[in-house]
């Protein structure tokens, strides 16, 4: 009797007999998902959908960086029934502020414009670390005073050049 109990105890402790769940294949996952999906007949007409659409993550890749309103209007004008907005994922994470330090610009001595400033405020993911889109406030840290003539000409005016056009 004691031997039988001991044997049972050892058996229970035998980790080789512990069953680990077998991961379901993607096909099995799909089947399970479909079980919970809508049933019944299809709608009588198919929906035309713009499946890969950007608005707030436009990062200057088009001449008319869109609002969602602009996209929706364009869709309606051309009989497109639906839009799937596929913003770059970092668009939704606005935790980090974007800091532009205008320290490395190039001065055009004729116009006194400064371009090519470092610091991409688009936060659009062309470079992963430069996140941005919906920015709601900005602060300008201004020091120095209105200078008298003879002051540093590089301060004449500053313009940030638009982001290079990229697509993705």
């Amino acid at each position, binding site marked *: 009797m004691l031997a039988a109990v001991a044997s049972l105890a050892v058996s229970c402790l035998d980790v080789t007999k512990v069953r680990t769940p077998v991961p379901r294949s*993607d096909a099995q996952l799909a089947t399970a*998902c479909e079980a919970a999906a809508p049933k019944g007949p299809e709608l009588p007409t198919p929906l035309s959908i713009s499946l890969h659409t950007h608005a707030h993550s436009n990062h200057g890749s088009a001449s008319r960086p869109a609002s969602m309103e602009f996209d929706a209007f364009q869709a309606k004008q051309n009989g497109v029934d639906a*839009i799937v*907005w596929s913003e770059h994922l970092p668009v939704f994470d606005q935790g980090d*502020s974007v800091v532009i330090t205008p320290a490395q610009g190039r001065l055009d001595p004729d116009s006194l414009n400064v371009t090519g400033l470092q610091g991409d*405020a688009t936060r659009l993911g062309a470079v992963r670390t430069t996140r*941005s889109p919906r920015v709601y406030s900005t602060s300008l840290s201004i020091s120095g005073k209105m200078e008298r003539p003879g002051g540093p000409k590089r301060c004449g005016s500053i313009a940030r050049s638009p982001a290079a056009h990229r697509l993705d």
Partner: protein
Amino acid sequence: MRLSWHADAGDLEQQYQIHYVLTTNAVPDSRSLEAAGVVRVVRRVASSGTVILDLLSDASFLPDGDDNTVVDLSWYVESHDSMPHCAVVKRVVLKSASPSIDANWYESQRFAERYWERFGVFGYIGFEEWTPDSALATAGFAQPGRGGSHMNVLLPPSDPGPLFGLWEIGGRGLVRKVHEQCGVVSINHPFGYALLPADTAGLGAIQADVTRFLLNQRAFEADLLEVGLPARSGTVDQHLLLWDRLSAGGIRTCGIGVTDTHGWRWDDPATATYTENRNPYVTWIWLRSTTRVGLASALRRCRAYFGNPFVFHGTIDFSIDTIGAMGQAISVRSDSVSIRFAITGATGLNLWMVQGLVTPGVDVQYLRRERVADTAATLWVDTRRPSFVRVEVRLPDGTPAAFSNPIWLAK
């Protein structure tokens, strides 16, 4: 400060702007419309220190002012006494009033609902992720966005909760996690996001690399592949060939057509004078329900076809006896089956049937590629070997118009 483009009242496409006038003069603060789409904000500021501007509040003077991004920022110093002056801007800090993922996700949902009510256009919020996995990085596909390094995700839940588990995952890992949540994933612009260059000499080698890579990776088991993409490092026909090679390799991906628009007008490249839209493709989907769950399900089941909506205005579907339909993978015991087409709106267009064998190797062996005269025809196809069958609709000169998804016929 230049913001996003809008289409107020339907006939005025313009870029919103906020003009800030920051002055040390003793003037009252004010905010007014300087012109349609332009807010003028006058603020008295000290000669030094920090100036905080509330962009959201100021943009709210404009219709849909909350639906904006900062596109461009420039500033100037203006002298009113004929003397040179200078301002030193030490830094500009752009800070969000709604930094959380949840808040921004829900805001996008609100915008989509607002425009559904206004325009009757259904809006779904998905996202594009471009964290490459090690295979993509090793292949050098991350930077040019090739081979699945950019993937779009649509999840059934409307809340942002699942996003937290999908951050900065790419390749097979992302696909698997999305499938665990009943979502669908697409491989975007497989040959890269770059526009089709004038000199296409180097594209063949790139496309061959991508094809081998996706075959080896089994396309990460992604659900969808951007095929209807006329001007992204390959033509539609080159994308079709990639797609067929995957099908021939036993890798089933649902073809879709997309714009990947970042803000341009939907116009017909064939006729418009303003034509930034080189990818005017859409995907038509046979839905059971317009809910997010319904959309994800229809895409997963591949009940879709795609094309250029300026060229094709009809519908595409087909079925095999009673056992299968466009987009499905079915097993066939018999040596042949009949395919019944149900295609509308193809007047003046040519209909083609394409059948390719599912066989190992990089090349595709096409059993048939033939014109079909009748859009409601019933055709017999050989099913003695595994194959896939799909339909093409083209202009008489061969210009692509619309494409069905295949039916994959296994033994």
